[in-house]
């Protein structure tokens, strides 16, 4: 009988039920998409981080900051201590956290003249095949780390000793297109090399005024065979914590146990430490500010999403409470009659709660799938990739539906309890 009544209430009041279903669906879809994006955004931002390239910078121990960053003084690079042996690069993949090293690329820059104007030429690995002494074989290089660069032309390979990737700004200034040849003169060595524009790229940074060539060309131009001046490394890292911060300041300040934990965790500082262990002549600097500000933005974004989720839930609860209350008022005669026939408050409350829970369930299921869809749209527009729906969200959404529908029916239930049969069944 109870089931029959439920069924009848629901089917005979399709329109009103539908309205509540829609309200629940709306709230749940918003919450679902927010939660899905929120849970996924951590992974996404990490991918982005990787996409934004290096989080470690390896420089020679004696390198000065200024020349390291701007390469203004070409003559400064004369001292051998300011270079790293190219042979040493394989060691990067031989540390404890080798598998966390996603990518790395060496750089050697030299200033040369094109039409008597100085231009920065950077030699690097584009996508180099390396055989590590441990037996592993990897492909590593700049292209994977600069995934946000917009590059026109066929993919540059390391064996191409006549090609160059030219920055957009420079190409415009020199009026060069893909396939055009140009000649560079190294002022120091007086070498003349003719190269072909293999790609024109847009990075959005100072690189747009530079030329990227295969490492051997730059080494020849700079007369620094077998040497590089800087290595960028992209490593997967564990977020920093108190321990990592202390270790970053001074690893020796840690106790033995702390040190073990730190060393065996993929903190950016422990990876840097291990790189310095295998390459004694270098200094490894974490590009920390980037990671931290990304982390802060991530936290703020997630906070924003939580707030939006709560807000959308509160709104649905309010809307539901209005609808359910209106529904109970409209049905007060019927409810009064049930009470007159001997229905207890709890019996009537059961009926109303079951009703709203069924409606909420339907709305929740619909809302969940719409929300997963929303999340995909957000994923595509914001991150350019799919957002994997998390299973964890289903029980979470279930709890939310339970919460908003029950909370929403509280005023209606209160009204129902205080409703007396004589108030509605008057024989006056």
């Amino acid at each position, binding site marked *: *009988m*109870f089931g*029959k*009544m439920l069924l*009848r*209430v629901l089917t*005979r*009041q399709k329109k009103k039920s539908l309205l509540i279903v829609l309200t629940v669906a709306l709230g749940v879809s918003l919450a679902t998409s927010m939660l899905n994006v929120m849970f996924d955004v951590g992974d996404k931002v990490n991918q982005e981080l990787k996409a934004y390239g290096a989080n470690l910078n390896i420089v020679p121990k004696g390198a000065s900051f200024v020349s390291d960053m701007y390469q203004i003084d070409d003559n400064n690079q004369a001292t051998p201590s300011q270079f790293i042996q190219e042979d040493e690069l394989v060691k990067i993949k031989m540390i404890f956290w080798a598998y966390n090293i996603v990518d790395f690329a060496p750089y050697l820059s030299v200033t040369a003249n094109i039409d008597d104007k100085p231009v920065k030429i950077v030699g690097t690995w584009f996508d180099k095949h390396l055989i590590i002494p441990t037996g592993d074989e990897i492909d590593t290089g700049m292209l994977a780390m600069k995934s946000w660069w917009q590059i026109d032309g066929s993919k540059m390979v390391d064996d191409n000793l006549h090609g160059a990737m030219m920055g957009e700004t420079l190409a415009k200034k020199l009026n060069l297109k893909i396939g055009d040849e140009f000649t560079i003169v190294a002022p120091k060595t007086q070498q003349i090399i003719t190269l072909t524009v293999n790609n024109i790229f847009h990075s959005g940074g100072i690189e747009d005024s530079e030329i990227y060539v295969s490492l051997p060309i730059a080494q020849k131009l700079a007369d620094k065979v077998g040497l590089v001046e800087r290595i960028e490394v992209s490593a997967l890292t564990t977020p920093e914590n108190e321990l990592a911060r202390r270790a970053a300041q001074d690893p020796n300040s840690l106790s033995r146990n702390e040190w073990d934990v730190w060393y065996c965790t993929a903190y950016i500082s422990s990876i840097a430490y291990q790189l310095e262990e295998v390459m004694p002549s270098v200094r490894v600097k974490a590009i920390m500010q980037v990671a931290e500000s990304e982390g802060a933005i991530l936290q703020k974004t997630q906070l924003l999403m939580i707030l939006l989720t709560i807000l959308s839930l509160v709104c649905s609860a309010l809307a539901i409470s209005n609808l359910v209350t209106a529904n109970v008022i409209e049905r007060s*005669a*019927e409810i009064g*009659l*049930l*009470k*007159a*026939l*001997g*229905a*207890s*408050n709890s*019996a009537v409350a059961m009926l109303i709660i079951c009703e709203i829970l069924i409606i909420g369930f339907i709305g929740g299921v619909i809302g969940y799938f719409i929300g997963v869809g929303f999340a995909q749209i957000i994923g595509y527009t914001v991150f350019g990739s799919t957002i994997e729906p998390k299973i964890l969200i289903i029980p979470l959404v279930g709890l939310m539906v339970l919460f908003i529908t029950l909370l929403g029916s509280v005023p209606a239930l209160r009204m129902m309890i205080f409703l*007396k*049969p*004589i108030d509605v*069944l*008057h*024989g*006056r």
Partner: protein
Amino acid sequence: MNILEVNNVSKNYGSLYALADINMTVGDGKWLSIMGPSGSGKSTLMNIIGCMDKPTSGSVILDGQDITQLSLTDLTVIRRDKIGLIFQQFHLVPYLTALENVMLAQYYHSMVDEKEALNALERVGLHARAKHLPRQLSGGEQQRVCIARALINYPKLILADEPTGNLDEANESLVMNLLHQLHQEGSSIIVVTHSPEVAKHAETTVVLEHGKIAQIIDNLK
């Protein structure tokens, strides 16, 4: 043995006395009519007897139990177990069929029994309309569904507040016949009515005026 004893019952809304010091008794298996002008307190009295309202003072003994001392929850139980209610506006649940409306009373009382519910509908001559919704039934038919619902749990006392107020003569006599049958089977009946014809079916008629008993008429004489 009396099914009902009303002792010094008063009910006031502020300074307005809907009922003022009412005393009356209804014997087991008796039929009582209550008459009186509009606003004289008939429905107020019925609601108190029907366990839907409480008097301001006085006591009501229903089937040996003082119902004025009970909580609302207990009153619901008494109403369910001992009283069959018939209203002037035949209150039925709009989205349930005639049969389901009758079964609803069974459901809240004890257990649903479709066969018994069908029998009750047959008794009021509506066996064929069991699957119809209230809006598909005429007023008279709806009131007969209400009677079927009121009698389904074998109540000791049937309370009918103007049961024929909205019915034509043919339906009125149908309803009165049904009440007669129930009366013969031993149910006690209290009927509020404005119609002297309807009132005459009872053994006794009580006339209320301004919340007081103005007259008691013995219809058998």
